[in-house]
């Protein structure tokens, strides 16, 4: 959790504190609302469990109460960290300004409890939430206008569209041949399933009349594509987006996202619309085509998004299309690459400058990321993509 998010969470905790009534069940419910507001998805059943758990504890043992609420209301390490950030503030016996955090008056409109004086609107709390969002929106607007130059990004390859789609299909197939571990039993298959044959033939009094056979169920390959659209990539952005678009249309179990400063998932848009309208959509929704790059930050959003969509599995191949030029925090980039690598089957990094740099990148961000990449390949033109696909096919 970065500083802004933490600050916002603490501010929200201060606000909800004012709603505490002193009645435990009510206070736990309000605490749950607070957790949901800061992004911890607490199911209703967990609240009931939590209230039940407190019955078994001595309430004067604050650390036990904290542990109990944490284990009932959170379901992951990330959630736990958010919980820790707000627990002390919300359940504090001290006055609110002891945390040098004044409560915002506009919040809930409910009467504050005796211990929590309502001290008028605080600029600090407001900055934590509203204005941060606004600031982000303005940055987006600003970068959006840069992209409005209309330098003919689609026009580069009208003729090669079909070729690109063909390559996308071949690539998906090359990456897709994953033999699953599960088997399915039926009338056909390479092996005889003795157990099921016996069971199946119980209806004939145990005579082996019909043989049942098993075959491996092929798992559909999962792909996750993250495409860099920042300004350093501008010459290649049309080609890359067209490729991602073709891939998205071809492969059903695929999630695609584009990033520069922010990461946005484009799977649905690309799948539903042909290339030109899809790119128009990108432009209209002020997805910043061409801006700076914060790869670590975006990777985090990307992996989080994939996890929410249930798209990170042991058989997921991740494609990153980027030159690795990064202005964000390098530590975050490294940590996020490690996380992505540990959850995916294979991470392939396609760099338009890979061949030019002799496959030994000088760019800081990429050098950080490289230890966690399985294949570092060149993708600067249709021809290099063709070579890449043949290589993947020969290895699969």
């Amino acid at each position, binding site marked *: 959790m970065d500083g802004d998010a933490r600050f916002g969470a603490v501010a929200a905790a201060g606000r909800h504190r004012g709603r505490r009534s002193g009645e435990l069940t009510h206070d736990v419910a309000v605490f749950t609302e607070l957790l949901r507001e800061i992004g911890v998805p607490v199911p209703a059943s967990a609240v009931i469990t939590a209230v039940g758990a407190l019955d078994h504890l001595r309430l004067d043992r604050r650390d036990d109460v904290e542990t109990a609420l944490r284990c009932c209301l959170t379901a992951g390490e990330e959630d736990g960290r958010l919980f820790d950030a707000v627990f002390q503030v919300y359940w504090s016996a001290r006055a609110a300004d002891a945390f040098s955090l004044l409560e915002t008056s506009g919040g809930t409109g409910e009467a504050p409890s005796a211990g929590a004086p309502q001290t008028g609107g605080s600029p600090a709390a407001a900055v934590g939430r509203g204005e941060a969002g606004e600031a982000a929106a303005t940055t987006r607007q600003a970068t959006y206008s840069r992209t409005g130059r209309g330098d003919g990004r689609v026009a580069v390859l009208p003729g090669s569209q079909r070729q690109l789609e063909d390559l996308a299909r071949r690539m998906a197939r090359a990456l897709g041949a994953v033999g699953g571990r599960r088997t399915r039993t039926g009338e056909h298959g390479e092996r005889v399933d003795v157990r099921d044959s016996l069971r199946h033939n119980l209806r004939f009094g145990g005579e082996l009349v019909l043989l049942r056979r098993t075959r491996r169920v092929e798992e559909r390959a999962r792909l996750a594509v993250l495409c860099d659209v920042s300004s350093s990539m501008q010459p290649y952005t049309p080609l890359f987006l067209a490729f991602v678009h073709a891939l998205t249309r071809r492969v059903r179990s695929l999630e695609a996202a584009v990033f520069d400063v922010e990461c946005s998932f484009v799977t649905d848009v690309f799948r539903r619309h042909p290339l030109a309208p899809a790119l128009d959509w990108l432009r209209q929704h002020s997805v910043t085509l061409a801006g700076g790059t914060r790869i670590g930050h975006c990777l985090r959003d990307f992996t989080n998004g994939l996890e929410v969509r249930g798209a990170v599995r042991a058989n997921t191949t991740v494609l990153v299309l980027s030159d690795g030029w990064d202005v964000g925090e390098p530590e975050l980039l490294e940590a996020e690459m490690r996380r992505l690598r*540990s959850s995916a089957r294979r991470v392939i990094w396609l760099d338009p400058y890979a061949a030019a740099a002799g496959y030994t990148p000088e760019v800081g961000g990429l050098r950080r990321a490289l230890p966690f990449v399985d294949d570092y390949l060149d993708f600067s033109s249709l021809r290099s993509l063709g070579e890449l696909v043949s290589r993947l096919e020969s290895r699969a």
Partner: protein
Amino acid sequence: MPDPGAGDAGAGDPIRDLAAVLAGQDYIADRPLATVLYLAGELGLPVLLEGEPGVGKTSVAEALAAARGARLVRLQCYEGLSAHQALYEWDYARQLLAIRMAEAAGGAATRSQVFGAEFLLRRPLLDAIWPGDDREVLLLVDEVDRADEEFEALLLEVLSQFQVTIPELGTIAAVRRPTIVLTANRTRALSDALRRRCLYHWIPFPTLEREIEIVRTRVPGASERLVQRGCLLVQRLRTHGYRKAPGVSETVDWLRALTLLGAHDLERSRVDDTLGCLLKDSDDVRLFGERDSERVYAEFGLLDGR
């Protein structure tokens, strides 16, 4: 850890009692972990333990089972684990035999005879719900994140209703709820449906004091100086960003190895020799040799200790 309520809590603190019982099984649990385990027992809910490899997720279940005198039923998860291996299976060979014997005796075996409880092979999950004897059961579902989603779905009925449905027999509900412990390493995200049914607890790496206590318990023969300095060195290594940071079990193995070699204090040559107990990745070992070893040895005053 500081114990603010220790004075008045007295003997009536069940959480401390539980921690003490676990300590009797050589497992040193901190207060939050003991609280979660206590609540799981009181509320009758499964516990989902997550943490880095080697922080003692599996051994807490073993210690808990031993402390309660419960039978430990362990299910090791892997990709492709299916209902046959996790829940139950019919003993087809015996069924066939029974049919043949019934034929030989002149009658025909009826369906209800062949699909009876005695023809059922109990796999871990069913065994925990429907044990053969009266003993308490602790079900350990180990590394649940290694299994696939299909298996996770299979678990849900067991975790929330404590029952198993067998089409031929009907639904079998647990007479006595087993204690269920699930462990995971975060190799993939578990489904919300599974998480929702459990109490969740993240086991962090232990603090230096607790790690020293753990090693003292686990390696009784080790010299005090070796234990203290060894644990400090491991805690340092954890901050160096290795691909696989050494867990508590690595610390225990390492100090046991050093004790076995007759060491009473850290020595550079011995540390070099036994580094494989701590770092189990070739890149990490190389990284330690090239980047960190001088700094670490200097800090521990081992540079001229050859």
